[in-house]
């Protein structure tokens, strides 16, 4: 139920709970990404969680407050940055034999810094996916908004 008490967003309860939890959701996304090579999860899952934290913010507080935190063109730019980073990591593999070769030292199993280039790829994927999904949400929602104004 979206009631407008003079300001955008949802009711008080949703806003207060969002305020308390959204940062922790964001943090959990980062956790999933950074531990992606050790436990279930990874760049995609973490990116989705991070995108969901922003979507949560958007739904609870409306567009204006969300864009104070992250601008709309920054979202689309970040998506491309993530893709370019990922591709760059793949191409850097050429210094060690070929496309997507793991060019960094593998490290010790079950340590946070291990797996060579895989955590880096995870971070790149996370940026790409997070920005992509939030951008997709914005595209769909912003379109609905323009439709309503048009009528």
């Amino acid at each position, binding site marked *: 139920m979206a009631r407008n008490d003079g300001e955008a967003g949802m009711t*008080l309860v949703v806003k207060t709970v969002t*305020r308390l939890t959204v940062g922790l959701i964001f943090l959990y996304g980062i956790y999933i990404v950074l531990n992606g090579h050790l436990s279930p999860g990874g760049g995609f899952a973490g990116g989705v969680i991070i995108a969901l934290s922003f979507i949560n913010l958007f739904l609870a507080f409306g567009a204006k407050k969300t864009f104070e935190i992250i601008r709309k063109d920054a979202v689309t730019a970040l998506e491309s940055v993530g893709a370019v980073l990922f591709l760059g990591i793949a191409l850097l593999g050429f210094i060690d034999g070929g496309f997507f070769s793991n060019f960094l030292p593998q490290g010790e199993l079950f340590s946070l810094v291990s797996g060579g280039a895989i955590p880096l790829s995870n971070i790149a994927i996370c940026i790409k996916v997070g920005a992509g999904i939030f951008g997709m949400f914005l595209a769909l929602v912003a379109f609905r908004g323009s439709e309503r104004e048009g009528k």
Partner: protein
Amino acid sequence: MKSRALMFLAAFAVWCLLSWPPTALQLAAGAAASLLAAAVMGRMFITRHHMLGHPMRILTFIFHYMPVFTWELIKANFDVAYRVLHPGLPINPGIVKLKTGLKSDMGLTFLANSITLTPGTLTVDVDKEQGILYIHWIYVRGRDIDSASRAIGGRFEPILRRIFEEVVP
């Protein structure tokens, strides 16, 4: 700024719980991640941080509110289970208004969520200006707003007032 610092502490604590037992690397990564989370999302984590400076309020929350809430939860569970299992299905659902004296966002949210979490009652909407909660009740006992307020929120409200309100009447 204080809100961001608190966010950082909370985030770091959560990180430590997630990666238990923490290694040095995990802690370093956690600090970086918490910083990022605090920088991005920390601005509105807590609006009235001076409230955390009163240890009585926190103690009241843990040692008074939590037991009361747990007891109400158990009672309401049995009540709803009885209504469901009873062959006559003694329900009388309806939406009632609840008048509250709470003014702060946190207080209202905790009241609304406490009411929602106890089975049988569900907060539908909150009107902050007039201090009114709209509640769906499985067995509406009376049409009178004061009795409804007492029956549903009576146990929580005084405690929450002592925890969250700036000036305790």
